[in-house]
């Protein structure tokens, strides 16, 4: 069984959308870096350019939402929903601990992209654990 993968038509569509958003991310990121390097923007323009590469990554989360809506297999959907909960719990835990340390002891902020990576690591780990727990042998 392949969760959120190629086992169902919705899973296939989800994978295609992720590929598209990741390709878009690379293109937008390179364009934003070049733009900042050559025009040296600051203030609101810099904030706006910094938001641009985040959009395809957010679209990736949107694709996850669309996948959950389209997925017909109840069980695969349940697994994805549980994984989403685990990913969110890990994300919030990391944000709260890090921000608390910043607020009370002046610790350094999280490394760039730490939250994004943490969310998808938590999501992926939860999927892998559930996959292992529900593994049935080939001759079952």
């Amino acid at each position, binding site marked *: 069984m392949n969760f959120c993968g190629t086992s169902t038509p919705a899973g296939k569509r989800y994978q295609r959308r992720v590929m598209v958003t990741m390709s878009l991310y690379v293109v937008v990121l390179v364009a*934003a*870096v070049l733009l*900042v390097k050559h025009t040296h923007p600051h203030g609101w323009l*810099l*904030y706006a*350019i*910094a*938001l641009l*590469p*985040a959009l395809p*990554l*957010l679209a990736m*989360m*949107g694709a*996850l*939402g669309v996948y*959950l*809506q389209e997925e017909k297999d109840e069980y695969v959907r349940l697994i994805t*929903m*549980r994984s*989403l*909960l685990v*990913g*969110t*719990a890990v*994300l*919030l*835990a990391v*944000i*709260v*601990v890090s*921000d*608390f*340390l*910043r*607020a*009370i*002891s002046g610790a350094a*902020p*999280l*490394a*760039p*992209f*730490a*939250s*994004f990576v943490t*969310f998808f690591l938590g999501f992926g780990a939860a999927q892998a654990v559930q996959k292992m727990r529900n593994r049935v042998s080939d001759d079952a």
Partner: protein
Amino acid sequence: METAVGKRFKQDGFKLMAVYFVIYFGCFAAHLWWLTAEKWTWVLAILPVLPIVGVITLMGRYLRDETDEYKRDVTIRCLLWGAAGAVSMSLLGGFLWIFGWKGQLPPFLGFWVFFVLMMVAKLSYKVQNRVPEDADVLVWKEGSR
């Protein structure tokens, strides 16, 4: 109409959020007045996470027990909106740092964006799908004709 499972989730969720705020301000106070040693810093930072994990666990239980497919869908969509908001704040900070910005986003911004976006999403779904309170009666009357 709210289901019994939904009511229980709301009640328990509010209680846990109240516990969160008590722990949150308690940890700040403890750090200022009693537990000032550095060894306590990590303990105080981890304590407020516990009620948050509790709320997420409650949400998992709610999603398991809720029989209304639509309500389950809306809850998951709201969660995704919140997570996307929190992640986008972190991504914004990350890209600004890469582009040479020397400042820092305020602490707890991601956390608050998460909750505000979740609430906004919930409200917007509620407004979009509003049905009059007597909709069930109207449907029943139409059926009996």
